[in-house]
């Protein structure tokens, strides 16, 4: 029978001396293995309020641990370590250290919202997952997720010019996520996508006439123009500044 408690021992809590002699008896190596105390020794009462301050985390305190969220979870079905019910409990009691042990999988939530639909206490666990991810990014516990980087670039352009340029969003996103654009065009999915958009397969088939008729010309031209001149939306004025102030203010209010 597997020893359940063994799964609770974190590797960093194990202590083993390579050389140890006790009362003349050699107990070197695994014979002297000791486990550091691993009990929960306190609650952080304010942690719950911090998470409630993030959009989506507002109702986390309602949870009564029925486990409906975890049972309905799409990600849990393929990864049993992904346990929303458990994280919500940790938030409510303020067991931050325990929570951070799972910091590298919380982002995996696919926002299918099955948990939110099934939750009898209307905790909205999907929102809690988002709130947790944002909190961890804000506190520097995890690197900014790809979706956060995308959102940031998207928002930056919206606020600056009242519009986005698709090409600029995607190039900046790829750059910020450390993806080599040139390599992606030459050997990756980006090259294949551009080639197909431009009907190059027709060219390869030797159907030159059809290729010329179908090749998008005005679109790429307009795209290039926009990339160079970065026009703002008409009468955008100070709207961006005002919006930015409003967003900051709302964030401050939410965090109390």
């Amino acid at each position, binding site marked *: 029978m597997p020893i*359940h408690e063994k799964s609770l021992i974190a590797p960093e809590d194990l202590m083993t001396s390579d050389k140890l002699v006790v009362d003349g008896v050699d107990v070197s190596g695994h014979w002297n293995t000791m486990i550091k105390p691993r*009990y*929960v020794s306190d*609650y952080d009462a304010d942690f719950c309020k911090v998470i409630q301050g993030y959009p989506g985390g507002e109702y986390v*305190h309602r949870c*009564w641990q029925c486990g409906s969220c975890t049972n309905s979870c799409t990600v849990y079905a393929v990864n049993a370590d992904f346990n929303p019910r458990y994280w919500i409990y940790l938030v409510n009691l303020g067991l931050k250290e325990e929570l951070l042990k799972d910091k590298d999988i919380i982002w995996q939530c696919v926002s299918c919202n099955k948990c939110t639909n099934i939750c009898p206490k209307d905790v909205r666990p999907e929102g809690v997952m988002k709130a947790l991810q944002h909190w961890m990014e804000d506190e520097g516990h995890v690197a900014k997720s790809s979706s956060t980087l995308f959102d940031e670039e998207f928002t930056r352009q919206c606020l600056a010019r009242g519009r986005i340029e698709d090409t600029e969003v995607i190039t900046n996103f790829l750059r910020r996520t450390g993806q080599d654009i040139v390599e992606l065009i030459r050997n990756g999915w980006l090259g294949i996508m551009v080639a197909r958009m431009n009907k190059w397969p027709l060219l390869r088939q030797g159907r030159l006439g059809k290729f010329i008729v179908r090749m998008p010309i005005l679109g790429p031209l307009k795209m290039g123009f926009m990339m160079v001149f970065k026009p703002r939306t008409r009468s955008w004025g100070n709207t961006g500044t005002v919006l930015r102030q409003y967003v900051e203010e709302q964030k401050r209010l939410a965090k109390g």
Partner: protein
Amino acid sequence: MNETILIVGAGPTGLSAAHGVASAGKQVVLVEKESRLGGAPILSGYARLVPSGEWAKDAIGRMVKRVEDDARITIHKGAKVMKLDGDSGNFIATLSNGRTVDAGAVILGTGFTHFDSINKPEWGFGTYEDVVTTTQMEQMMAAGKIACPSDGRVPERVCILLCVGSRDRQIGREWCSKICCTVSANLAMEIKELSPGTDVFIYYMDIRTFGLYEDKYYWRSQEEFGTKYVKARIAEVTQGPDKRLLVKGEDTLVKRPIVIPMDLVVHAIGMDPNLDNPEIAKVFGVGLEKHGFLERGEHYTASFASARRGIYVGGAALGPEDIDTCISHGLAMAMRAVGELNAGAQKAA
């Protein structure tokens, strides 16, 4: 056929039964062993009652006054029934104050005894001053201040341990005391109202805030008053070097041992059978069920009957019960007793 009904016990059950019988035009003799009427809510100094939110001394006080002001009700305080002779229709009770009472029927509203926390020494009651019971907390709430008994400081953290003296085979309490979950949730809210800086934790195995108590107490305490519910049965309560109490146990949802500092530990004590039940059973010739509460007869057509004809039992004497239900039991027993007397009188005529 005697037209008087003897009622034993002047708690919510007995007071309600006394009023019921008197309002149906019969004479009542009410016998209470303590020197005050009102039963546990008054004698133990409860604060606000579930679910009305009224102060016990006001709500139960009204019941007491109604009974005291009723010319049909004769009250014997500080008295016990020592002997009960005769049969249904013609009982003769001998009281400890020397009086005898002739009665056609007897209603037992003899209630319960609070569990004595000393029987769970591992949870620190009697060892540490800052371990108290829900009864003591009720008294604090009624006095309008919350403080640690050891030094009078306002606790930063209070934890309430549920199922103290309930659902515990180790000490022969194989029943759920029914009301402690709701009482504790109510208490958690009262503590927060009185001292907004105090955090309240409730350690539970299950939460049984039955019926309409669910949202009004459990949900509300959690959602509006920030009460934290922790699924752990505490193993022991000890004291740290800083004199703060330490509650030890396993948080079953984190699957990890916990040792958490607390300023005040509250035992949500259960309802035991009345300590006098063996004596009551002997004097009145009624039975005890397996846990030691009074035995109830067939309920569908002989509601609230005891093992002896002409004697009715109800309220917390039958098992853990909430005040509202006790009051209903009292009225139901009045109905049964008066009905029985009327049937007897018709037969005689």
